[in-house]
Every structure is written in C-alpha cells, then in structure tokens.
C-alpha cells in the first residue's frame, strides 16, 4: 500500500513537472522550423534597467520603469502549420493551469487575439498573448512583478 501511494505521488509529481509554462512552451517550439523565437532573461532585464542614459526613440513609450519589474520574455512566432494546433493546446493548458484570466478576446476577419493576465488588483505576475492569423501564430509571455497601473498606462499611451 505504501508503495502504491509512493508511485501515485511520483506520478503526480511527474505530471506536475510536465505542466506548461511560458518557458516550457518556448523550449518546446523555439527550435522548430519556420519559427522565430525571442527570449529575454531576468539578467538581461536587470542589465537594461541599469543603463543610465537609455535613448528611447519615442519618449511617449518609455518602458524603462516597467522593464525593471520584468523577469522574462518569451516570444514564439510560427508559420509552421504542423505545430499550430499543438502550440494552441499547450498555451490553453498553460493559462488554465496557472489561473490566468482572459483579459480580452477579439475576433476579426479570421484573426483571433486572446490576452490573459495573472496576478491581483495591484500586480500583474504574468501576461500572455496568443494571436492566431490564417497562416501565422504569435505567442508572447511576459513574467514579472508589474504594477497593473503602470502596465495599463503604458499600453494606453501606445494605443494613442
């Protein structure tokens, strides 16, 4: 009986380890064909934050305050139809398992955009965007401790 419980526990641990995250999705698909991928590490974000005279092309979208609160950026852009469904499933599994909330869903002319966030009223700990076009797919995952007000203000400025 003890062994059975131990086996069940190990099975559960292994299932938990197979659970999706932005990092695991990036690792899984970044080397696939017709995929362009970008990863920015927490160390690089710290480095960006330390640059004293960061020249910003467009002053209205200065991201330096928010950059310091970022811990990782994973971007997958795929035009590979073979992995499309698999990526969508993995992203759905990821947002479901991590209690992400659907912030926005827009469907227009065959394009679907879904944006999810996780955190609380003050802080956004994770931001995920999945954009599906006819032949293209974009997955963006940003981890960090972003102040929700700062993030909203940044996007509001950019959307003007």
């Amino acid at each position, binding site marked *: 009986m003890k062994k059975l419980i131990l086996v069940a526990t190990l099975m559960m641990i292994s299932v938990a380890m197979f659970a999706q995250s932005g990092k695991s999705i990036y690792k899984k698909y970044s080397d696939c064909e017709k995929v362009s991928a970008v990863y920015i590490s927490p160390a690089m974000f710290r480095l960006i934050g330390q640059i004293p005279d960061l020249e910003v092309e467009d002053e209205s979208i200065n*991201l330096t305050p928010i950059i310091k609160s970022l811990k990782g*950026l994973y971007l997958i852009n795929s035009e590979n139809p073979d992995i499309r469904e698999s990526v969508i499933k993995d992203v759905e599994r990821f947002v479901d398992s991590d209690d992400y909330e659907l912030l926005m869903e827009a469907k227009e002319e065959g394009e679907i955009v879904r944006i999810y966030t996780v955190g609380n009223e003050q802080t956004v700990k994770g931001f995920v965007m999945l954009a599906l076009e006819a032949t293209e797919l974009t997955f963006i995952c940003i981890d960090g401790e972003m102040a929700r007000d700062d993030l909203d203000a940044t996007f509001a400025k950019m959307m003007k």
Partner: protein
Amino acid sequence: MKKIKDIENMDWEALEQAAGTSQANVPADLESSIKAAILASEAMAEKQPATRRLPARAFYGFAFAAALAAVITVGVARQRPLQDTFDDPLLAYAEVQKTFRQISDKMNVGLELASEARTTAEKPAEILKKINE
C-alpha cells in the same frame, strides 16, 4: 557397401532385408545410457516449474522505476538553461519595445471592435429616445 543414392532408391522391403542381414556393432552399454538420459531429462523437468506469473510487487517496482525515470528525465531537461536571444541590452530593449507595440496594436483591434459594438448598441436607444420626444 551401398551408396546413399542406392539406399534412397530402395523400397521398404529391401531396406528391411538389408537391415536384417547387415551386422551392426551395438555398444554394450547403449541401453543403460539411454535409460540414464531419460531419467536425467525427467529429473530436469521436475526441477523447472511451469510458467511463473509475475507477482504484483514486480509491477509496483516497474511502475516506481518508470515514474522515477520520468521525474529525473524531466528534471534534467528542465535544468537546461535558456540562451538569451540578444547579447546587447539595447537590442533587447528594442525587442521589448517592439513586442509591447505588437501587443498594443492587437489590444487596439479589440478596443475598436468594442467601440463599434457600443455604437451599434446605442443606436436603438437613440431612436427610442427620439420617438419618446
């Protein structure tokens, strides 16, 4: 001495006759050797039990090993560090900016759609308002 080809062409009767007339040297201890061989094979058969079923313990052991192997494999795979796409922080910053721009563009599409929907929803209310006036 007959050749093999001749023996092959002989019928059963001829073969029996040839066997009866020929003098073959039979070893004196042949019978005892055959009996000993039979007894030995019987003894071996008694020692080896019939097909044995694997106990449940073996299954648990196998499942335990498989689960442990899965945990170790995934653990090792997860430890593989990721390589930064950019070495230059300025390039990394430019990419972050581009990504935020991409997100805001997509959000804009959603907000435009919401705005259009609101306008459409407000029209019947305006009509009703004019009728009431």
